[in-house]
């Protein structure tokens, strides 16, 4: 049947465009080799870089105090020491215990909190380590891997009594561009979990229809035409884990393995045909386990990878969109922090990672990490304007400010398969007072899809 042109061609809306720059090179592992390198090298790189950083901050903090190494501590003398924190946790699961108790394939560990009132912190630099005491430093807030500067003095018992603490603080932030004439949206979604029992394909199809501009009347479609970027922050597919137990796969099981990813590909094709799309790997995706997770291979998406709008990205993922810097992960770093420390809400964890200037301090202690030898890619060099975390329970957001005028919008993206909610970020920059410019991502429109 011939196509009926009920609509004149020029009645179509044009999608807005934006300038995209990927900043993922830092997270790409170019030559992945395991020559027996130890994790001490990444710790050393981290300590080295952050100590230089902190030394530069010390004159503004307490310039009158001398800085000394752990071994040179003298009893009773006030000084500053800089090093990596190590948290000794009573309840921290040890792989050796787990191995001895049950030698089956590890089931998904139920994430619960391993903190205990008896946890204590130790500061370690390349010369030695010292146990930390004092009420200023709360062990439930910090995790292994933070690099901090501590002001205090050594006690007779061989401990270090902490009086004050200095974190690296938010990194410097590039200035935001002036207000753009057009209003643009960026859509974040995560936790599609296609293939799991909880995912509802109709919900995701409605979402796809909406953002691509099929659904709704002209008004709705004109809103959709302002979406310039879609970011899928992990856990797009859920592979039936029961099949992956080391046995030969029967033919019908092999189809069960590949059906979810094929379904995702069809859906992503529908998105990529209209909007630039970034897909990040998550904890359940067919990507490597250790951070930084490498991009999902293009062969997984034979249909959507043909589009120039389709980008497979690392986890963590960083990019510039119209000179607004985005940084985010699929949630592993925050989930790990949640297991080993305490805070009021998830956004507090996000804020902490920013103030520590490190995306994932628990890596490689409790968070799987590639053994880098010469660098630590999780150090934040510049402060993002938007910092997002995927696969969380609820949608939450906050605007935080740094000491040098940095402003960051924090976003927790909920799992789509459970909540049916995606997050839309409204990129509008408002010039406030003539002097300072802040991102006005205040007008938040979480898109909630519900069916009857």
């Amino acid at each position, binding site marked *: *049947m011939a196509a009926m042109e009920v609509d004149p061609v020029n009645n179509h809306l044009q999608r807005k465009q934006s300038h995209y720059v990927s900043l993922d090179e830092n997270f790409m592992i170019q030559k992945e080799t395991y020559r027996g390198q130890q994790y001490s090298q990444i710790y050393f790189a981290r300590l080295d870089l952050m100590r230089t950083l902190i030394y530069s901050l010390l004159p503004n903090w307490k310039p009158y105090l001398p800085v000394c190494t752990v071994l040179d501590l003298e009893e009773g003398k006030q000084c500053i020491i800089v090093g990596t924190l190590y948290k000794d946790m009573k309840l921290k699961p040890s792989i050796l215990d787990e191995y001895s108790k049950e030698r089956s394939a590890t089931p998904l560990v139920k994430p619960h909190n391993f903190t205990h009132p008896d946890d204590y912190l130790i500061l370690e630099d390349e010369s030695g380590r010292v146990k930390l005491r004092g009420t200023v430093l709360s062990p439930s807030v910090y995790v292994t891997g933070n690099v901090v500067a501590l002001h205090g003095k050594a006690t007779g018992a061989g401990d270090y009594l902490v009086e004050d603490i200095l974190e690296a603080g938010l990194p410097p932030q590039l200035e935001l561009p002036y207000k753009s004439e057009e209003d643009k949206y960026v859509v974040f979604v995560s936790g599609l979990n296609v293939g799991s029992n909880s995912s509802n394909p109709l919900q995701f199809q409605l979402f796809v229809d909406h953002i691509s501009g099929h659904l709704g*009347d002209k008004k709705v479609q004109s809103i959709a035409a302002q979406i310039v970027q879609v970011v899928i922050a992990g856990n797009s597919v859920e592979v039936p884990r029961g099949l992956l137990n080391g046995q030969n796969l029967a033919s019908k099981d092999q189809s069960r393995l*590949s059906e979810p990813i094929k379904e995702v590909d069809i859906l992503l094709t529908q998105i990529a045909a209209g909007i630039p799309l970034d897909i990040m790997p998550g904890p359940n995706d067919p990507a490597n386990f250790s951070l930084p997770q490498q991009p999902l291979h293009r*062969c997984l998406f034979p249909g959507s990878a043909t589009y120039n709008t389709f980008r497979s990205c690392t986890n963590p993922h960083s990019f510039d969109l119209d000179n607004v810097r985005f940084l985010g992960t699929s949630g592993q770093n925050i989930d790990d922090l949640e297991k080993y420390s305490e805070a009021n809400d998830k956004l507090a964890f996000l804020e902490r990672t920013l103030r520590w200037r490190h995306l994932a301090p628990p890596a490689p202690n409790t968070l799987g990490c590639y053994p880098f030898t010469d660098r630590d890619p999780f150090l934040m060099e510049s402060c993002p304007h938007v910092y997002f975390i995927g696969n969380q329970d609820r949608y939450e957001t906050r605007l935080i400010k740094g000491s040098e005028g940095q402003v960051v919008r924090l976003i927790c993206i909920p799992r789509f398969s459970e909540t049916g909610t995606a997050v839309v970020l409204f990129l509008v920059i408002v010039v406030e007072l003539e002097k300072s410019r802040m991102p006005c991502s205040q007008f938040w429109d979480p898109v909630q899809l519900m069916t009857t």
Partner: protein
Amino acid sequence: MAEMETLGILDEIQALVCDKLQVVSYKWLSRNFLVSSNAAKRLLQQFTEKHGSELEVVYSVSGWLKNNPSVYHIRLVSRPKLPEAKGEFDDNCSVHVYSVQVCIPKDPAALWNAEFVQAEELFKQPPTVVNCLRDNRFCGVINSFVKRNPEATSVNTAFLQAKSAGAPSSFRNNSAHQTDTIPLPQHKKIQQSSPNINLQSPNVVKDIKSESHVAGARDQGSKPSADKEKDPELPATKKIKGASGTGGSLASMWGRASTKSNPISATTEISDCAPNSVATAEAQIFARERVENESSDDDGENVKFKRASNGEGSRKRRVVFDFSDDEDECKDAVSLASPDPPKSKSFINPQESSKSAVLQKNNLNFVEQNKDDLMVKEETNIESKKLFTKESVVSNDKESGIFSSDKIESCIPQNDAVMKDEVINAAPNSPKRKKVFKTRIDERGREVTEVVWEGDEAEKKPDSSTIKKSDNGSVNTTVNRPSTTKKSPAIGGTAPSNPAGKAGNRKAGNKDPKQGNIMSFFKKV
């Protein structure tokens, strides 16, 4: 005119909904009748006005909620609940018909099924076809900056792309018709053609196409293969490297020494051996490994080869059970394959035996392969080699991967006796003596790999049994070479075999009539 067409469409919708009980959503309508989504919505609106009274209608309401203005909602409501839903939304919400159906399914996701099936059909079309799914032409919002490149960015990705594109269809095909053998030979053919790609690709494509049509299989395999003319070299070279890398040292020498085409032809020939091999998981695994190796940037050649041998090994084990546990029977089993030209046969064995030699490694490695490898599962019966040609063009389908597995598999059901026969036949024609690996299953179910020198055809068969009994645990194959041909099989045969197997051989009663059984001494007493 437009009105007439509209009426025609409305009638068709009526037929679909009422007679076929299908859920007709606006997207399905737009793709089916090639109208824009907005037009489809209008059509559905007209339809509901005309016939909607006896049908269920689902509306989509999208807008801001009155009591929660910062959240944008999209909701699907059935007609009775529409006024209530509209009340919850702001006044400027958008309402339009989402779908019409005879009755609302209990599971709302069922509303999505018909649409998804249609999307899947469009998705599975060959990558070079631009359809309404791929260019989003019926959308209300168009983006002129989107470019689609069906060749993807690299040869490898294109290779994989076609492969995975072909996968679902071939997969379905196989699952639907368990005994559909046609796709396999098609794949096999493609595989073999890899070394000779440049020369004969057009022919191959044609053949494949005709085959697939004849078979009734989906022609996805054929079309992508046309695109992949660049790729055939890759699998060919990788294969060769794999042969040289992982096989036994002798096999590797063999692989390096021979020309490029040899291993390929060898593998191709293997498929000739067993026309009726049963598809097993190993075939798929091997195929998957092949795919994966070709696709990944890893140095997968050696690994691939190893895994191939693993797969083959486990296949071999299965085959033993299929036929019998009795070793005599194995030896006497008749080859079901039509005899191959001897020369080509001689090439097969090093390849195969080298694979089997590396057997022991890791049977379950393949399981951890990429899940994305949409390997075709069942390899149904492999047709005889008449479908087998040496034409080039590597198909990027999984099927091509399967082909290789088929090759191996086809040989496996044949017992070693068969292989020996082939080698024996081949021997006279070979210009010089060549060392050949043969693997067998001994009476305890263990794999025994023997090194046989070609040119010893006469002695091979009887010697095979003696090999087992041989006490020479450590075989010095280099010594064998200058020695007489009679000795070499005996000694060489024990070299790769499992020492335990050998011990077992010695202990167990040997049923070889030619050589005396030491246990017989005790029995007589």
